[in-house]
């Protein structure tokens, strides 16, 4: 059911030594990552490890303190606004909460990239929107507002919008978080469908282990702002890294620690 996508040999997205600080706290600490054409790259890691931040750097919403993000060989942070827009037209992004504009209906939301960036006839746009709606199993719901549908539907509608303009790259920020297992499975299948049928390159940020192994062509494990391991699902499963193994099994004991060192704890408790 979950047949994996084929991988090409040239890297289309490359992250080089990416560093980002937020208010004195280092969130990304020299991230390096290559993403190849046609693959589904899954970036996994614990909450707050910087994976959503990394994704936002790749699409150019956040600017790094140092380091580069290259898409098709172009450093997106040194591009002019107009050139960056050109690259963004090749990008679709599914946000954690869908990111649908709340004053527009689902249909208007999905049509937005097309009405703004193409000269297509209104009827043609209507057909495309209906097509995308049926791809995400939401036929006949286009007239509803985002506030009138459930969280799972918002994600599916967001997915339809992300692929409305037939992008070459689709980014997913926690596409299955907070959904029931069946809907999560449906969304995973859609992600795989898109990469096979529309031959898009996908980058998925998630910490749902079931999803990770279902969809990934390659997996990157992010921990404390650094990539600790990259590999195919089989390589990752067989990884000798205790960190990776702990994350896969979800064990509370291991190198990913939630308790503090004794000295730190003492100073914090006695701090006035």
């Amino acid at each position: 059911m979950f047949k994996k996508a084929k991988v090409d040999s040239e890297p289309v997205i490359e992250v080089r030594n990416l560093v980002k600080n937020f208010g004195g706290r280092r969130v990304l600490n020299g991230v390096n990552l290559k993403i190849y054409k046609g693959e589904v790259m899954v970036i996994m890691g614990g909450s707050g490890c910087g994976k959503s931040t990394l994704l936002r750097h790749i699409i150019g919403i956040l600017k790094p303190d140092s380091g580069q993000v290259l898409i098709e060989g172009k450093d997106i942070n040194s591009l002019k606004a107009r050139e960056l827009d050109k690259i963004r037209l090749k990008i679709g992004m599914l946000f954690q909460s869908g990111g649908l504009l709340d004053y527009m209906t689902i249909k208007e939301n999905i049509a937005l990239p097309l009405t703004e960036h193409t000269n297509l006839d209104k009827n043609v746009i209507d057909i495309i929107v209906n097509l995308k709606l049926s791809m995400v199993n939401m036929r006949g719901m286009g007239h509803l507002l985002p506030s009138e549908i459930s969280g799972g539907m918002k994600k599916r509608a967001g997915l339809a919008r992300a692929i409305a303009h037939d992008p070459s790259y689709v980014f997913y920020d926690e596409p299955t978080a907070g959904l029931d297992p069946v809907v999560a499975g449906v969304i995973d299948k859609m992600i795989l469908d898109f990469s096979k049928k529309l031959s898009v390159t996908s980058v998925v940020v998630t910490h749902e282990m079931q999803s990770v192994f279902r969809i990934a062509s390659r997996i990157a494990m992010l921990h404390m702002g650094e990539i600790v391991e990259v590999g195919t699902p089989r390589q990752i499963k067989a990884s000798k890294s205790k960190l990776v193994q702990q994350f896969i099994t979800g064990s509370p004991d291991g190198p990913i620690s939630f308790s503090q060192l004794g000295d730190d704890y003492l100073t914090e408790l006695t701090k006035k």
Partner: protein
Amino acid sequence: MKDLNSMSKNPINAAGRAANNFSFFIWDIVSLFFQVLHWLFIGPFKGKAAKRDGIFEQMVFVGVRSIIIVSFISLFIGIVLAMQSAYQLEQMGAVIFVTGLVAVSVTRELGPVMTALVVAGRVGAAITAQLGSMKVTEQIESLETMALNPVRFLVVPRFLALLIMLPALTVIADLSGIFGGFIIGTLNLNIDPHLYLDLTKEFLEWKDIYTGLLKSAVFGVIICIIGCYNGLNTKGGAEGVGKATTESVVTSFVLIILADAILTAIFYFAKV
């Protein structure tokens, strides 16, 4: 940022930090204003005009829906002003001057300022709340990834709506303020209705009206830029939206009064 925070106990450093933040704030406000001007005057020639369909909706929201409250408040301002000035003028037997006093103070000062304050509370707060909740639910970011500039898409329609509708509302406020004075003048002070209107026309000059309208256009710009700035820079969920909204109203109020003082001084010394 971190080192600045740790120095905040020193009052001189704290003052320096406040001044630093303030100059950043001014810089951001001015640059937002210039971005709006860019999309208004340069954007259309590059084939990227502002969203026209959004402007009408915003004009209805800003203007038409504010008519009742603005005329209600101005009516009572006119009534109060007439009574207060009659109380003073009666002692000199110069009650007849109530006509000119009400007309000139309403058109030059109270009409524009009261309207701006009401609209800042009603519309400015709403703008910040709308944009702020869009910001915290990833809608602004989703616009950016679709290569749609949030300033062109969200700020420019509101800017135009306020720039057009605030002076329009001020005209209504002027009329109902003068009508408030007329009620007291004719019913209580026993001035003949025809005489009241004739005297109003005699005392009132065109420059009284257009300086008032010029003021209100400036106030419109302030309400829009401050409202949008606070909305687009909202941080931290629902609480952040509330905070940004409060800040937006307070800042608008202060800047409106400040701008009023400056403009009045200019008109006064230039003998306009």
